[in-house]
């Protein structure tokens, strides 16, 4: 995709989502889990943005904040509706429904993402009813079409979730997200619970649906090979912040941030002659309740200097061979130089 003529779909500015931790006899709020900590991000129409990071770094919280399942503590999210941009938090009820029609989610766990006591038709019926599909025949037609779109048979709509396999259920979850024709679909670890062959099947389905229905994806995952396959751009998160953001191939070619380097070095390669240069990180991710000062990554970073402990690096824009690359590191320029040396 040409990078200049993209239209932004969702712009996130300074977003913070904190969860209060109550303790003590009177339940006084003492500390906060800083799950999403000052995120600036623009999602363009028609792209697939991969969001990677290890567990507990706030990927899912970010997704659920966009869906308004969690209330953001600070910051704003501006979505481009047909009649102009609006802040997602300041919508009246009618506009809120419009936003719900536009943004949908595919969940991680195929076991719990469908109501076990309802057939597929019954499960999908209420949302459709809410969004204006009044008659039963119409609803059955829409659900049948959707099931065919995700490569399943129409008749399956009268079956119960326990009659399906994991991959099938995940495809039904995708069908549910698509039932009211959204623009932006957040795939929250959508393939992580499936085994590899089914993963490929579902990923290809997602790609196909994206082209057919002109969708935009935010693809949340911890699996780097999956994200490389499906994403146009990739954002790497660490402890509630974005540390590196670039086009997918650019990120894999010129890996700048030390954390991203460590992550990418951990991708298994199916080649016995491949010599591994694994960067092993020491220690664990610090607690998001009391994140370290300065750069969140400084405790585990080999390049750590005094400045890293004191100052928080901002996510700055750099250009590598004419392509945009956002990095939050005090030593970005030095690392860019190193990354480019490898090219030659």
């Amino acid at each position, binding site marked *: 995709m040409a990078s200049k003529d993209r239209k932004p779909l969702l712009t996130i500015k300074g977003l913070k989502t904190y969860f209060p931790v109550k303790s003590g006899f009177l339940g006084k709020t003492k500390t906060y889990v800083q799950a999403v900590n000052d995120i600036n991000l623009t999602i363009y129409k028609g792209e697939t943005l991969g969001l990677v990071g290890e567990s507990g770094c706030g990927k899912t919280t970010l997704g659920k904040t966009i869906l308004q399942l969690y209330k953001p503590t600070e910051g704003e999210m501006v979505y481009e509706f047909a009649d102009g941009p609006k802040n997602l938090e300041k919508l009246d009820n009618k506009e809120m429904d419009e936003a719900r029609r536009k943004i949908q989610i595919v969940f991680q766990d195929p076991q*719990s*993402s*469908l*109501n*076990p006591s309802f057939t597929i038709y019954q499960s999908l019926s*209420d949302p459709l009813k809410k969004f204006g599909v009044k008659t039963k025949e119409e609803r059955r037609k829409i659900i049948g079409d959707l099931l065919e779109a995700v490569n399943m048979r129409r008749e399956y709509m009268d079956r*119960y979730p326990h009659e399906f396999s994991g991959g099938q259920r995940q495809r039904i979850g995708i069908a*549910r997200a698509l039932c009211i024709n959204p623009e932006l679909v957040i795939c929250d670890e959508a393939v992580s619970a499936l085994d590899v062959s089914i993963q490929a099947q579902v990923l290809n389905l997602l790609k196909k649906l994206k082209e057919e229905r002109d969708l935009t994806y935010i693809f949340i995952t911890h699996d780097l090979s999956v994200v490389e396959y499906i994403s146009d751009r990739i954002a790497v998160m660490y402890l509630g912040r974005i540390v590196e953001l670039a086009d997918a191939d650019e990120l894999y070619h010129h890996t700048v941030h030390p954390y991203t380097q460590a992550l990418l070095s951990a991708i298994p390669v199916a080649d016995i002659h491949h010599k591994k240069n694994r960067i092993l990180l020491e220690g664990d991710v610090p607690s998001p309740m009391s994140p370290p000062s300065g750069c969140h990554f400084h405790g585990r970073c080999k390049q750590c200097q005094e400045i890293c402990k004191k100052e928080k690096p901002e996510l700055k824009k750099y250009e590598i061979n004419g392509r945009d690359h956002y990095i939050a590191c005090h030593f970005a320029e030095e690392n860019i130089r190193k990354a480019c040396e490898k090219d030659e």
Partner: protein
Amino acid sequence: MSTSSKNARLNRKFDQIRRMEESGELKKKKSGNRALRKLLNNRLAIIGGVIFLLILLACIAAPLLTSYSPKAVDMKSILKAPSSAHLFGTDKIGRDVFARVLYGGRMSIAIGFGSALGCAAIGVLLGCYSAYRGGWFDSLMVRISEVFMSIPQLILVMMLVAILGQSAKNIVIIFVICGWGSCFRMARSQVLSIREEEYVQSLKVFGLNPFVICYKHILPNALSPIIVNVTLSTAMFILEEAALSFLGLGVPMEIPTWGNILNAAQDMYTLQNNWWMWLPTGIVVSLFVMSINFMGDGIRDTTDPTQQG
């Protein structure tokens, strides 16, 4: 016959079966409600249901089955053993025990079921919403339920009897006031775990009405332990009614209930010499309670959607 032709024949047959299976011809056309079909397949539940219905109908149709009045005193036939005139014999003041069991059943069953359903209705309605909504509303409801559960039942009974007088209706009210808390907690704990399931999250993303999510989508999945609880507490309330009646605080003595009948036979002499005063009644009570439990199990299985049927 050669093996290859045999194989070919088997293969043809296999293909045919597979074709039929895929086109759905093999499956019998399922008719009617899935839950009902599953319930009918459960033999124990059917037996329970039959016993339950027999006793229930006998109690309702009591005037057709016996010509005696449960309250009619007949001093000429005191403590008569069972005979064709008095099926279950007579008690100390010559009342027909069979008639008393039938008429008493009406009252006992009504009290037991009424209280259990009352508890369940209040407990489930509040518990489900409270857990789904969470926050201050939930903590408030939990505290309130704790207050109600911590009131000593006997003192409440005595208070209400003193204020309102002794009656079956008051007993039910007292049972519901003291009992809804446990049902509330059960429903709440069920919904607390279900509301984190992803399908609930997805309904929230669609922005459905919280009452629709709560009572239509979550409740059916939370129902099975609650139904079992209702059946068990029906049995419990029948026994509790008997205990209160024994203390003279329950249903007034002149109204026959199973509890009142059994309590007439509390002294050692009756127990040893007049078995007909307590044994048939005891058997009826046990059968009834057992049949309710069988039915409860059956209903629990049908409401469990992961069990196929």
